[in-house]
């Protein structure tokens, strides 16, 4: 089992979510995040004083998946999240040792 984590542009969330749903991915956790990478922040001006806002708002998606679904999920995210401009985000995959469904106590892949 794997955990797919993606940091993407906030306005891309709906598109990614529906594309993943079409592919049969029926669960994810979404949280608001902010950060910076190669994308520089932006400048805001208040009464003539300039402030560099270097933490840019992003959305973090977390999806628990069976190993065989991981490539499909990554491809779907890339296909929908890519704008080609700097600041599109990142996707990474980490191994997961155990998953338990809280309601039933099921473990492993049946809990996904």
């Amino acid at each position, binding site marked *: 089992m794997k955990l797919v984590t993606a940091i993407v542009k906030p306005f891309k969330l709906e598109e990614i979510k529906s594309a993943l749903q079409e592919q049969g991915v029926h669960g994810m956790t979404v949280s608001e995040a902010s950060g910076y990478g190669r994308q520089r922040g932006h400048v805001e001006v208040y009464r*003539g004083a300039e402030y560099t806002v270097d933490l840019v708002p992003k959305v973090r998606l977390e999806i628990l998946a069976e190993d065989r679904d991981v490539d499909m999920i990554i491809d779907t995210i890339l296909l929908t999240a890519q704008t080609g401009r700097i600041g599109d985000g990142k996707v990474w995959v980490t191994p997961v040792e155990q998953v338990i469904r809280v309601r039933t106590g099921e473990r492993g892949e049946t809990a996904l």
Partner: protein
Amino acid sequence: MPELNTGDTAWVLASAALVLLMTPGLAFFYGGMVRAKSVLNMMMMSFASIAVVSVLWVFYGFSFTFGTAESSPYFGSFDLSGLTSVVNDMTANGAYYPIPVLAFAAFQLMFAVITPALISGAIADRAKFATWVIFVAIWVTVVYFPVAHWVFDFGSADTTGAGWLAAKGVLDFAGGTAVHINAGAAGLALALVLGKRVGFRKEAMRPHSLPLVLLGAGLLWFGWFGFNAGSALGANGTAALAFINTQVATAAALAGWLIVEKFRDGHPTSLGAASGAVAGLVAITPACAFVAPWAAVVIGLIAGILCSLAVGLKYKFGYDDSLDVVGVHLVGGLWGTLSIGFFGTTAATSWGANGLFYGGGTELLVKQAIGAFSVLAFSFVVTYIIGFLLEKTIGFRISRDEEIEGVDVTSHAESAYELDSRSGSGLGGILAGSKSEG
């Protein structure tokens, strides 16, 4: 003694209510500009001013400003203290006005309320609330009441006991000196006494809610019609002139500020629009009944440009006038007061005077400068002394830790915004000392 005029009385009473609304409006204007951790404290400083000054006004404030018996040129007397003996009296202030003196007292009270509230913008995020309350009481007593007497008290109907600036012929229709220069100079003094906020110039201290700033600017604008047009103390042509001048000067200043931003920074901002409007309101305040409407447009436009440049001074000189009380109220008040020396005309109001552009020479301009700078100097020096003594005795500034955590939580045990979706499970945390569920 004139007979009571119901139209005049109704307008002055309504104006008093309009001017009261400016102080909550100011609370929103300032509150939106600070960070989310200190918005309640910012707004509370304005509301506290309503409480403190209103009470003092009854006991001695009105008397010390407008007292009639043995008034000196520099302060009033105590013969009207308590306001009980004046229920059936009409207003006499250089002439008779057919409105109850209590309507005049209520109207003038609202000016005394908002002036210290204006100062609070200079010391955002870092003042001890209890010290602020004490400061307001002391400051109105030794600074506002005397200065308002200098400027607004034209004495009894035969002008005996008038304030020295009023007697000198310094023109200030609604408070460019007594309210705005006074508050601006005091704000500068307190910003110097309290020092810079933690992180000043190092971190972004962005306004947490620009919609609140715009709401506050709108309420100020609305209330300001009472401030300026109400100062005619009657429902008449002078009030109408002050009203239209207030509107057009404010509109021009809003545009002026945005023009500067567009050319200097590339983007016209909503904070600039709100600030420009207030700068225009400030500048037209002293002049609103003494100039023609075309001149009000010019005064407003220059105010918007001048103040938008003046708010940068704090970075140049390194004082943390957090919300630009100096840049907007001191600079705007100075410009507005001096502008009468250029644009003043007796065609607007007969007891006005002709300025430089109307063949009056420099006489009026010199008088206006004397008025403006004497109020500036007096307010700055006395406020600095009050602030310094309070800081050295009971402390005026909160601790560094309290400031970083946020003055709302540390001083008032509240946060402005509860946006956490995790609350509401019905179980809650443990409320220390909660009595609600027995």
